[in-house]
């Protein structure tokens, strides 16, 4: 795994921003209709800081992305994605390979679970992040991409137990979780860069 940090952050941020309307529509169906708006605000702030972020070592850069998300996104996704990136950056050492990334991601996901008091199976971003993490160490980008897509799709039939969608009870069934979709978008963007597609 080798890639230009600036390209990576830039691609991830733009991917989410480009899909903001889709994320909002998903959130209108089972939430309060702001997930795309929230993520766009946060990732546009990341883009505005791109020079400063890209100048840092990978770990510090990721931490700064996390802090920016915490301070700009708000809602449920702000603290959760903020925690994900911050802890990911904190744990990731100077040696970056499939194994260290998998380990750092695992640590970060634990913090997300603690912050959200949540688990997989509750129709949230964790339903993408956790299965993706499980296949990262193997380093097969096609597989990672496939797992992200399948996992996001798998949130459709779930009943939400966490997040605003949980207020709907049974009515949350039949819609993709917006946070699962944004996680999938982020994973895909990373894969694109690593495959030289972006």
């Amino acid at each position: 795994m080798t890639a230009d940090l600036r390209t990576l952050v830039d691609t991830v941020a733009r991917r989410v921003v480009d899909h903001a309307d889709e994320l909002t529509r998903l959130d209108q169906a089972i939430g309060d209709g702001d997930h795309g708006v929230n993520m766009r605000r946060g990732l546009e702030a990341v883009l505005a800081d791109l020079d400063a972020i890209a100048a840092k070592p990978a770990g510090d850069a990721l931490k700064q992305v996390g802090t920016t998300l915490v301070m700009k996104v708000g809602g449920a996704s702000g603290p959760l994605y903020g925690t994900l990136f911050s802890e990911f950056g904190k744990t990731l050492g100077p040696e970056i390979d499939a194994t260290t990334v998998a380990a750092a991601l695992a640590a970060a996901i634990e913090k997300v679970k603690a912050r959200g008091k949540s688990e997989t199976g509750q129709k949230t971003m964790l339903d993408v992040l956790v299965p993706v993490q499980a296949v990262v160490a193997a380093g097969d980008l096609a597989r990672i991409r496939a797992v992200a897509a399948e996992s996001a799709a798998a949130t459709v039939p779930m009943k939400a137990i966490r997040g605003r969608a949980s207020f709907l009870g049974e009515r949350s069934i039949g819609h993709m979780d917006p946070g699962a979709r944004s996680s999938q978008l982020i994973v895909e963007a990373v894969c694109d860069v690593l495959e030289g597609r972006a």
Partner: protein
Amino acid sequence: MKKLINAPETVLAESLSGFAAAHADLVVLGEENKFVRRLNPTPGKVALISGGGSGHEPLHAGFVGLGMLDAACPGQVFTSPTPDQMLAAAAAVDQGAGTLYIVKNYEGDVMNFEMAAEMAEGAVATVVTDDDVAVETSTWSTGRRGVAGTLVVEKVVGAAAETGADLAALQALGREVNARTRSMGVALTSCTVPAAGSPTFQLGDDEMEMGVGIHGEPGRRRVKLMAADAIADEMVSAITADFGADAGGPALLLVNGFGGTPAMELYLMYHAARARLEKAGFRIERSLVGNYVTSLEMAGCSLTVTRLTDDIARGWDAPVHTAALRWGV
């Protein structure tokens, strides 16, 4: 989208500027619009801070002032504010007696306030409100939402803070008021988040959402439009059932409009709800009717019932001087 705005990106800032200018005798807007704070805090008291997504006005900024909040942190529309906002607010209003956060139970709000509390320097305690009986609770769920009952908590705790109660006592009082408070809402129309540009949900001309929250999220069930009395039946039943054996006795009744319902209908609902609550053994000793915890321009209302104690009634009656609630001064 039909709104009196210039652009979705500037709604919040322009509205806050207007609010601060219209109430310059009461409040000051913090830098970068991170918070609205009291112009003249009462010296030495515990600082009360609340906040949440915007779009619920007058909650919370309209409750900043003597006898209620010291600061309110406005998030984007229907989006929890961020920890830096609470930290900046606390820095501005903490007087050394500690800070109490009053937080509506939404994961976004809870997590952001939690992060702020972790980063805070001084003593911080939190009261989480969760008065909405429309949401099923269970050990595994997110739990009930905090809705219009939050106003009652802020008013009663605000009054106690003014008399010099300490942080632990205020937290206990806030939890008690919350525990004695239940709400239930109904929506006749959806609402439109300015940045989204279209209504969050679509309702047929003959439909309504029963058990709705305050973020334009759909309710518990979509049902056919009913007469006001039938709506009141269902809402009051949900509230009294949830109180269970505690139902009855002296109570405060708040009929809260969601933003698009005229006063005429709110008072009609008050009439219907009051009769039903009295039948269920409540004595309505305090009342409030109006748009207080809104959901942008949503049509509909919520009922909130607080089981009064003498202390809570005294706190309710105590002087308050804010943009949206004022009496005794």
